[in-house]
């Protein structure tokens, strides 16, 4: 079964079509990247899957279940999203504990204390952070909390919207390693938006390159090593990012 299927997906904001004719199939357990420059519509696709951009046509299904237009509770337990900016994605007046218990309360799940403690450990946060407020945490710690919140309902599919681009380089590596570890441990499927090709080669199995709202090429991440892209736009993007991201020169 495929984790995410997008068929002929068009998304518009008002009268402007932002994404056109997108077809993607992400297998279960796969890590798939959406790559492209700013404004190419990659984040919009994530928002549409998550239900935050309701003006779309076509077909979206997650884990075999077609997605409706609005946010629903069943969907929340299958698919969650991590946002780009850890400074904006946490409620400024809620402690880490409240943030992590909230999803459990919404879905009426019990045993909250134990689950929160367990999740803090899973995302590599010390227990002493549990009752702190976001302003007492660093950017990397905040992003760990955001990841923990997304994982509280034990979803199988995670949408990652440039999860590291707002962070320092050293912290980026920590977060990427954490995401990689979590995917391995919990068998997660990632759909990740990024404009950072080294991140793709580190994290992902396949990538779709987007330009002006359309997918121009879907290639395996290994293409980043040998440059075997067919589309001219992809080739120019690859060249602009300095070619093979793993080569140190």
């Amino acid at each position, binding site marked *: 079964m495929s984790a995410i299927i997008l068929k002929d997906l068009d998304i518009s904001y008002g009268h402007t079509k932002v994404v056109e004719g997108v077809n993607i199939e992400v297998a279960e357990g796969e890590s798939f990247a959406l790559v492209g420059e700013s404004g190419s519509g990659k984040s919009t696709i994530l928002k549409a899957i*998550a*239900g*935050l951009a309701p003006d779309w046509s076509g077909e979206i299904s997650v884990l075999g279940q077609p997605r409706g237009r609005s*946010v*629903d*509770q069943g*969907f*929340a*337990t299958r698919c*969650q*999203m991590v*946002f*780009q*900016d850890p400074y*904006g*994605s*946490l*409620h*400024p*007046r*809620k*402690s880490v*504990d409240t943030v992590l218990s*909230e*999803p459990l309360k*919404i*879905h009426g799940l019990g045993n909250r204390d134990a689950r929160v403690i367990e999740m803090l450990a899973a995302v590599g946060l*010390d227990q*002493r*952070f*549990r*009752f*702190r407020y976001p302003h*007492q945490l660093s950017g990397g710690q905040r992003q760990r909390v*955001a990841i923990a*919140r*997304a994982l509280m*309902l034990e979803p199988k599919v995670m949408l990652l919207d440039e999860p590291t681009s707002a962070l320092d380089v050293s912290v980026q590596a920590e977060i990427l390693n954490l995401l990689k570890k979590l995917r391995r441990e919990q068998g997660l499927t990632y759909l990740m938006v990024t404009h950072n090709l080294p991140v793709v080669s580190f994290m992902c199995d396949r990538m779709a390159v987007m330009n002006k709202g359309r997918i121009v090429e879907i290639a395996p991440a290994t293409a980043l090593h040998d440059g075997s892209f067919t589309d001219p736009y992809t080739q120019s993007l690859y060249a602009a990012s300095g070619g093979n991201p793993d080569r140190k020169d």
Partner: protein
Amino acid sequence: MTTMTNWLLDDSPSSRLQASLGHSYRVTRMLMRNPLAVVGALILLVLILAAIFAPWIAPHSPLGQNLGQRLLPPSAAHWMGTDELGRDIFSRVIYGARITLLIVAMVAVISAPLGLLIGAISGYFGGWVDKAMMGVTDVFLSMPKLILALAFVAALGPGIENAIIAIAITSWPAYARIARAETLTFRNSEFISAMRLLGASHTRIITGHVLPLCTSSMIVRVTLDMAGIILTAAGLGFLGLGAQPPLPEWGAMISRGRAFILDQWWVATMPGFAIIIVSLGFCFLGDGLRDVLDPKQGGKS
């Protein structure tokens, strides 16, 4: 004492209780550093104590008349003198604290949550909900408070309950405006989106996530408005539309004293002082609270 303080200020609290107590402790400590806020808080404390213990503090009955001792100047027996019916003004002012506190508290309890809720709903949903609700709000805002309150009391009939209702009806629109403006600043932020994604209902998001962010500016605004509420209530009392005689309401007392103001100045002046001091107390406390609670202006003084 130091272990207590350390426990309260612990950077990594070990329980929910410790975290919230620590937070309140920090706010209180910051408030204590502002001398005016302390003065304001003390005035309010005195007001509240006077209201609670009025029967024990007041040396005379606030209603009992003694025509043989009418219009006596302030003396050891009558600290603030007596009025035209020989009632002890000090006792009346003390009992008046109850009425003032009742009006202020009831108005705050009615209008602040109402304004907060309307503003938050309006800002959160936007679109036509916002247009409709803010249209109604604008209608109320377009009329001067006292005039509107007068109109309502005139329609409802004079009396303290009706005065409270009238003042509450006239004061919620300002709160709705503030709550809406506050809500608009974060309605599209990612922590609200994240809550939607987690399956939270609109009601849950508004009550659990939007309102808490509006409350601190609301507390500040309500505290600052208290002075205005007291003045409006006193104004209604003065015009004979608020508390009715023989209730010792401060505004009504001034109104009665007006007739003797040239010869027996204390009759009108003493309740006037009470109004001024309590209004000032609320203003001072409100200013102090704003410095502590309002993240946009606070912490820089």
